[in-house]
């Protein structure tokens, strides 16, 4: 699908500073750090969760539990397309009675988050689930909001927010792109 880059929303430096700021916010608003576990939503939520966990760990002085969840099996779309679906393993720490922080790159319709919550509940009963995202681009289709937001970006429905991470894309920036009609 052809796209055109419109503008850069965040540079590498800005992303780094935001993740530092989020780490501090999370520590400030989490009473019992020992119960905290970060779960990155595949795919780009995972490196973000790992970085956040490191940042939080640096603030509090000990390692923070971090894992990942693949939501393929929890999606709510039933359409069967010609391309081959693939599922990946999840690596979720124990959830019973824990304070789970889901981490994703972009919050949009919130369907992904709903699927991730379903996945977590299949494993046990967390004490609490909160959400941290790098970008909130609006256009919610479910009543779910993030407790921790890096930046809010206004977008139209045809636009996309493209978060590029070193670990996956080999570069580090957030782009606003548009679909070519």
């Amino acid at each position, binding site marked *: 699908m052809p796209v055109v880059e419109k503008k850069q929303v965040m540079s590498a430096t800005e992303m780094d500073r935001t993740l530092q700021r989020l780490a501090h916010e999370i520590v400030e608003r989490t009473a019992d750090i020992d119960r905290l576990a970060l779960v990155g939503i595949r795919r780009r939520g995972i490196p973000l969760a790992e970085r956040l966990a490191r940042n939080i760990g640096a603030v509090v002085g000990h390692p923070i539990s971090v894992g990942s969840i693949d939501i393929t*099996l929890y*999606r709510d779309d039933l359409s069967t397309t010609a391309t081959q679906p693939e599922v990946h*393993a999840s690596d979720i720490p124990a959830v019973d009675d824990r304070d789970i922080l889901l981490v994703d790159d972009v919050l949009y319709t919130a369907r992904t988050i709903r699927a991730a919550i379903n996945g977590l509940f299949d494993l046990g009963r967390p004490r609490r689930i909160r959400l941290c995202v790098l970008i909130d681009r609006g256009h919610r289709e479910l009543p779910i909001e993030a407790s921790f937001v890096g930046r809010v970006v206004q977008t139209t429905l045809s636009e996309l*927010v493209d978060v590029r991470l070193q670990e996956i894309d080999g570069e580090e920036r957030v782009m606003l792109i548009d679909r070519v009609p």
Partner: protein
Amino acid sequence: MPERIGHLLAIEPLSAEQITFFLDQSKPFQQIQRHPLKKLATLRGKSVALAFFEPSTRTRISFATAAARLGADTMSLQAASSSLKKGESLIDTVHTLEAMKPDCIVLRHAASGAADFIARHVAIPVINAGDGLHEHPTQALLDALTIRDRRGGLEGLSVTILGDISHSRVARSNIHLLSKFGARITLCGPAMWLPRELELLAPGVRRCSRIEEALDGADVVIALRVQQERLNEPALPRDEYIRQFQLTRSRLAGARPDALLLHPGPIIRGLEVESPVADGPQSCVLEQVTNGLAVRMALLFLLIGGTGGIEDLPHASD
């Protein structure tokens, strides 16, 4: 984006890469068997037709459970209760099933090539759950997953398959699969069930009529059921088979000390396998059952699971 897999009819045409993909895709489904809540909604609204024209309890329940745990519905046809007895042809029976709009058909049938035949007459994916003497692909996949998990890999193993090889679709599927990973395969059983042509099925296959020689140094031993009901020929007398070919503790000791014992089930204790061997530490029989569930869930997901539209866009997140 790879094209969706259409049917799973046989192991023979698959590459080692494709088999590895199936096994990797089974891993998340193994995880799910350990969750307190084992039911997903992934295939909610989809239905799986189980067309079993041959008696089977274990495979049918395995597929039914796999579908149910993914949230799919099942339509179950069993030969004894079907209108086949009234003379309805196989094609008509399957078309009747297809008219109820399942999303895929899981087929077990006594005629070799039946899955191939049906796949040419329906417009939905077909999974071969065993066709005559030809293949039983999901059995070979779950056996491979079991071996891979216990052994760390599938490369270069020494595998011995025991029993009535010529009439075994499990043997054929396993021979094709393990050979693709460079296994050295020894087939052992009464000579009239070991035709020369079995050595031509795939590279790395040899025959042997003495069980002690066949087990020497084996990494994996697959013991087959002795299939009395499929033989339309005089069978070997039971005591003769036991004396010559039963897998006893002392015989199994001739294999490697950490050799794995697999069996497609159900085991006839005291016939092909001695009871203590069936229950011993080398026996993987129960893992095979759990892995069978994982493999079949993965297969259903891969063949009829939805992907949604979002994945198609570059770097877009929901």
